[in-house]
């Protein structure tokens, strides 16, 4: 099986990674560049724990081949916080109690961040729809939805 040299920018840093054809973006992040914030919940595009931004748009990284990411810009949960401060959505999630076990959290943050970029003042229904591809088993989503509203208010 062939290996491909892939040039990507991850959280603002340029990387060149050698990946086999069958490696997903999720595995490349977790294994090749050891960014383990992105989680493997199902490897089937269902749970959203692996959500990252690919050229600014959230995708299930388990459903994207690493080799397809040549020239792409990728943002993972590790890239959300600023130099000295957390992203508003991270702060909101802490404040509103939207974190329990934390496994869905990275994917939720990416999806929520992307939502607020495209819709700075989302309605309750918009938030639910934007997060429907991020499964959470602990919180019942209540405080996650509240966190997104809070982050929108504070922007």
């Amino acid at each position, binding site marked *: 099986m*062939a290996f491909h040299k892939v040039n990507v920018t991850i959280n603002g840093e340029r990387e060149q990674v050698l990946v086999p054809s069958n490696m997903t973006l999720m595995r490349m992040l977790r294994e090749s560049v050891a960014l383990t914030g992105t989680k493997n919940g199902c490897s089937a*595009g269902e749970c959203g724990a692996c959500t990252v931004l690919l050229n600014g748009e959230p995708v299930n990284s388990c459903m994207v081949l690493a080799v*397809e990411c040549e020239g792409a810009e990728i943002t993972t949960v590790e890239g959300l916080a600023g130099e000295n401060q957390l992203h508003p959505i991270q702060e909101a999630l802490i404040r509103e109690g939207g974190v329990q076990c934390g496994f869905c959290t990275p994917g939720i943050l990416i999806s929520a961040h992307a939502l607020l970029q495209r819709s700075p003042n989302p309605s309750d229904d918009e938030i639910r729809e934007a997060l429907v*591809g991020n499964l959470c088993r602990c919180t019942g989503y209540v405080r996650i939805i509240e966190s997104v509203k809070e982050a929108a208010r504070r922007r």
Partner: protein
Amino acid sequence: MTIDAHPALPEFEYVQPPTLSEASGFLASHSAEARPFLGGTDVLVRMRDGFLTPKFLVDVKKLDGTSSLRFDPQAGLTVGAGVNMNRVIAAPEVRAHYPLLAEACQSVASYQLRNRATIVGNICNASPAGDTIGACLVLNGVLHIHGVDGSREEPLATFFLGPGRTTLRAGDVVTAIHLPLPPKGCAGRYLKLGRNKLSDLSIVAVTALGYPDPDLISRYRFRLALASVAPVPLIPAQAEAYLANQSITPDSIHEAAHLAAEACTPIDDVRGGARYRKAMVRNLSAKALNEIWERLR
């Protein structure tokens, strides 16, 4: 799905031919072992489950013109194969002229998956549950295909042969779906019944489109397409014909919905039972037709 679903994708070669001809040529010459893919949201899942074992995955997303979405005020809408569903939903031309298509796309899975899923991919996957297929059928969609013999067009109406089976031949690459201008004054509705409120595959789904047609006794033509209730996306022709020949009333809509239910041949599967599916075709068809009728009259 077996108990031995793999942790990772099986081995394969990723190939990205630079031109359409080279893509068709590669696919034709490796027909048993090569498979084209776009968003990969169906193909990659089935590969990890062991249902598909292509030696080559041919990326056809970036080929000539497949990334464009174009609206022509005479010819209609052409959605390139590589255009993801979120792009379709957000496109002003789609919102203005093909809201039914946007509605169908919006119902698919999740925002993340819609950033990868494509209408052409949905069509080529040829699942009777495909959410966007109904809209493309009732809007008289035409596929643009590039094969070893060059380019051709094929109406969507005759494209599906069975679950996962289409008229595509070795070497074929679908480059776009074209929807002619919708009929003047039309109204459409996509009603999807899943287990969760959002994000599920359909247990049953109804696509309905209605528009003024003075040549008909009813003076309005209705188009219907049903998902997940037959081996292919189903057009209940008898229901459509019935509505063409009556005045449109709650009773005639009710009867049409009943005919639509009679036309389908659903199965019992893990998602739902046949009896329930038939009843839902009837109820959802009636609901969709009534809603459209309210907007038309």
